[in-house]
Structure formats: C-alpha cells, structure tokens
C-alpha cells in the first residue's frame, strides 16, 4: 500500500506537522506522517529542526522571581481587589453622603416644627426663591410674594423647591431653588 496516497501532492499540512510534533496525533495519523518524513528528507529536516527548537526552548525557562517579589505582587493585587467599601476614597464618599443626608433630615425636622400649629416660634421663617423673591411658608404653593429682602433676613438653610404636586424633590434631583430664612430683627414684620 502506498502510504503517500493519504497526502496525494503536498504531504501533511502544517497543522498535521504541528500536531505530530506535539504528540497530538492518533496512532494511524502519526504513522502516516512518519512514513512521509521517511521519504521526504527536506520535510524531515524541518520537523527535526523544530523539535530541537522546542527542546532548546524548554531548557531555557525564565528564571523564577524571588518569593519577596511574588509577595509584593500579591499584596498589590489584593489591595486593588479590596472591596470598594473598604477603600479610603470610598469611605470619604460615604462620609460625605452621610453628612448630606443628616443635614437634609435636620432641615426637614426643623421645617416640620416650624409648620406645626402652636409652635413656640411666633414668626415663621420666610422662604425665598432663587431669584430673590420671597414666599410665605404657610402657602408655599402660591405665587411667590416679596416678603423681605436680604437686609431683613438671614439665611437658615438652602432647600429644594416644591413640585407642582407638593412633593419635595430629593437632593440632587434638581437645582436648589429655595432659601429658608429667618427675620433679622424680631420687631420687624415681613
């Protein structure tokens, strides 16, 4: 039987030669390549040269890093993979967010107390729009009415404006548009 009939013209393909060198061919295919090489010295020289390259390559593996170098790399990897909540900048962000929320809650509490009937404060604070006109806190849904100027009041806090539906937008939802102010002098009516 002429074994070259398996490779009629060109012989084994580069893929078959690669698999032959790596020992990945099945027994029958390996024998066919071996037979081809036995009859084709140029190919045989090429494959033998490649085999020597692989031996040379494996005999010269890169030197291993020192244990201390590995430890440094691991520490850096671990630091970069540390959960986000443990990172310093994330902690700072969390603190700022917490402080903002606390301020918002405090403002809401103060406003609620101001709106309660019979509250000790006889003069409700005035609320001013960003444009400088002021509105009465007792009727925030009405058109702004000029109640006081900056000479008459001091700013207590800055808050978001009420929506049409009476909902107070959350922080960050829109521009800050309300200023809660208190009269500077108790004997001056707005």
């Amino acid at each position, binding site marked *: 039987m002429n074994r070259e009939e398996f490779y009629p013209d060109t012989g084994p393909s580069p893929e078959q030669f690669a698999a032959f060198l790596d020992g990945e061919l099945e027994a029958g295919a390996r024998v066919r390549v071996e037979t081809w090489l036995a009859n084709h010295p140029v190919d045989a020289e090429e494959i033998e*040269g*490649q085999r020597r390259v692989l031996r*040379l390559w494996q005999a010269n593996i890169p030197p291993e890093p020192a244990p201390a170098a590995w430890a440094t790399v691991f520490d850096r990897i671990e630091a970069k993979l540390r959960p986000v909540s443990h990172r310093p900048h994330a902690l700072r962000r969390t603190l700022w967010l917490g402080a903002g929320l606390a301020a918002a809650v405090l403002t809401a509490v103060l406003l609620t107390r101001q709106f309660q009937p019979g509250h000790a404060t006889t003069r409700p604070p005035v609320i001013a729009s960003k444009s400088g006109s002021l509105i009465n806190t007792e009727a925030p849904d009405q058109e702004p009415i000029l109640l006081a100027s900056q000479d008459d009041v001091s700013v207590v806090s800055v808050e978001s404006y009420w929506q049409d539906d009476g909902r107070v937008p959350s922080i960050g939802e829109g521009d800050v548009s309300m200023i809660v102010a208190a009269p500077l002098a108790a004997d001056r009516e707005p």
Partner: protein
Amino acid sequence: MAFVTAPCLPAPSDEVLLERFAAGERAALEELFGRYRQPAYRAAFRLLGNEPDALDAVQEGFVKALTHLSGFQGRSSFKTWLLRVVSNAALDLGRQRGRRVLLSLSAPGADETADARLLTPDEAASGLERADLRTLLDEALATLSESQRRAFVLHADAGLSYREVADATGVSIGTVMSRLFYARQKLREHLSQRTTL
C-alpha cells in the same frame, strides 16, 4: 496496629475558589494566585523579556481577570481566561514600553554575546551560556508576528492545550496549529543562523 488517616480532601475547583473570593475570602485569592502565577509569569516574561515588566503584566492580568469576571462567564476555564488577559496585558505593556531586552541588545557589548559564538542545545542544558541563549531566544521570538508569538508562548510556556489557546485567542484550533507550525519554523530559521540547530 490500626492507623487512622484523615480523609484527603480534593483541592477546591477554580469555580469554588472564585465564589469564595467573591464572598471576600482572602485565602481563595491566595490559592488562585498560587495556582496560576507561574504560567502567567512565564508567558508574560517571554512576551516582555524581563522580570519587572512581566510581574507588572501578571499583576494587571490578575486584577483585570478578577474584576471583569462577567466577560469570562464560565465559557472557558478560569486559567484560559486569566492567561488571555495576562497575555493581552503583556502585549499592551510591550507596545508601551518596548521589549527592554531588544533595547539591551543594542547596548555596548551585547552583540558580542549574541553573535560571537554558536551555541548548541547541550550548552543550553548545561546552563553555562544560559543568559546568552535566552537573549537569542528572545530575539528569535521578536521576529514572529504578534499572533504567532502569543499562540506559541501560551502553548510552550503557559502550557495551554490547542483548545485552550484557541479559547484564549478567539480563533479555531486549526488556526492555532497552523500558527504554531509557522512560529516554530521561523524560530528555527532564526536560531539556525546563530546556533548549531
């Protein structure tokens, strides 16, 4: 006399370790690092030619592979995914920094070690001219195309199978085999001019 032996627990799979890592277990990360640092380093070293850059690539590769596990999604082994990312990182670093070994070849005296004498595989095995031979191998590797270099290094140095190299590089197994053949052919051509190959 009866001996009581503790049951030998099989090593946890990569999938189990990844779950433990996601739950914040440091030991799981250590185990994964210990398992794959060597093949990752060998591949990166071959692609970059020096230890500091190779360690940078390993570090970056581990971080990226573990922070982008959604890209992995279990379609291949974690080893394949990791070595894909590490080899990408190494090739990127190589483009940014250049292979320092090639720069060192142009340094005074470097040509003497590279060209002055022929080296045999036996000399390589003896370790007497290991540094010189490694320089020659680095130089030969640099003559390959990037795709050939990557396939060859992942197979020869990281120990990936054809299938794994195909997964890591996004090509067919046949393409991997073809690249390996032509990579070795080119290496042989280059090395045969300077050694007794």
